[in-house]
C-alpha cells in the first residue's frame, strides 16, 4: 500500500518518454508500392478500353477489370498518403515547396483513375509517382532509378 503510493509519486517525476507506437515507426518506405498499384490500374484501364462494349458473355470479365482497377487505384492512393503523411517531414517541405501540391494532385489522379476509364489520368498518375519517386530518393541521398514492370 505504502509502496504503491511512493511508486505513484516517483512515477510523476518521469519526464523522458519511450515510444511504443503501434505503427512501429520503422522508416521503411518506398514509392514503388504506389507505382505497382498505379501501374496495375493503368493496365486495367487499357484492358477495359480494349475489351470495348461488353457483350453479355464478357460481363464477368468486364466486371473483374473494373473491380481490379478500382482496388488498385485505391491502394495507390493509400500508399501515397502513407508516404506523404508518415515519411515526409517539414524539413523536406522547405526543400520541395510544391510537395503538398504534388501529393494532392497525385491523390486526385488516383480518384480519377478509380472513378472513370481514363487513360490520360492513369498515365498522368504514373508520371506523378515517378516525380514523387525522384523526390523521395533525393531526400534519402540515394540515386535509385525509376522503372516500371510492363
Amino acid at each position, binding site marked *: 500500500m505504502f509502496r504503491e503510493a511512493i511508486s505513484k509519486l*516517483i512515477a510523476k517525476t518521469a519526464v523522458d518518454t519511450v515510444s*511504443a507506437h503501434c505503427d512501429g515507426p520503422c*522508416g521503411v518506405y518506398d514509392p514503388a508500392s504506389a507505382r505497382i498499384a498505379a501501374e496495375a490500374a493503368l493496365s486495367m484501364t487499357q484492358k477495359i478500353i480494349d475489351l470495348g462494349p461488353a457483350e453479355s458473355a464478357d460481363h464477368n470479365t468486364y466486371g473483374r477489370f473494373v473491380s481490379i482497377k478500382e482496388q488498385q487505384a485505391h491502394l495507390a492512393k493509400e500508399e501515397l498518403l502513407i508516404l506523404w503523411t508518415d515519411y515526409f517531414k517539414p524539413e523536406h517541405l522547405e526543400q520541395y515547396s510544391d510537395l503538398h501540391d504534388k501529393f494532392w494532385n497525385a491523390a486526385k489522379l488516383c480518384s480519377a483513375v478509380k472513378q472513370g476509364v481514363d487513360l490520360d489520368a492513369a498515365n498522368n498518375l504514373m508520371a506523378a509517382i515517378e516525380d514523387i519517386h525522384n523526390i523521395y530518393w533525393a531526400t534519402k541521398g540515394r540515386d535509385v532509378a525509376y522503372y516500371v514492370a510492363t
Partner: protein
Amino acid sequence: MQSNLPRSNWREIALWLFRRRRLFQVTGDSMYPTLAPGAVVMVDPRAYRKRIPRENEIIVAQHPLQAGLRIVKRVTAVVEAPAASTAGSARVILASDNEAAGADSRSFGPVPLGLVLGQVKSRLR
C-alpha cells in the same frame, strides 16, 4: 514466450535513488498488455555493459532510423556477430508485444547493440 514485467519493489526504488535506474514514460500501445500507454518503467542503463541482451528481455533503444526517438520493445532474437568481428557488432531483433501492431510486415531490421540504451527492469505505474 512473453513474460510479465514485475512492479517496482523497494530494491528498485532504492536503485533509482542511487541513480542506477532511469524513469521513462511509455507512449503508444504496441507493448500492450505488458505496458499500457502512460506506464512508467524503471530502466537499468548499465544492464548491458558486461553482457549482451537476451531473448525476451524488454529494452529501451535509440531508433535506428529516426534520430532522437527512443523506443521500447521486446528482444525476440540476438543475431550473432560474424566470427572475425567484435561483440559490439551483434544485433538484436525487436518486436512489439501487441500482436495487432506486430502484424505489420514493415520493420526496422536488426538493431546494433550500440543503440540499446538499457533494460526495462520494472514498472512503477
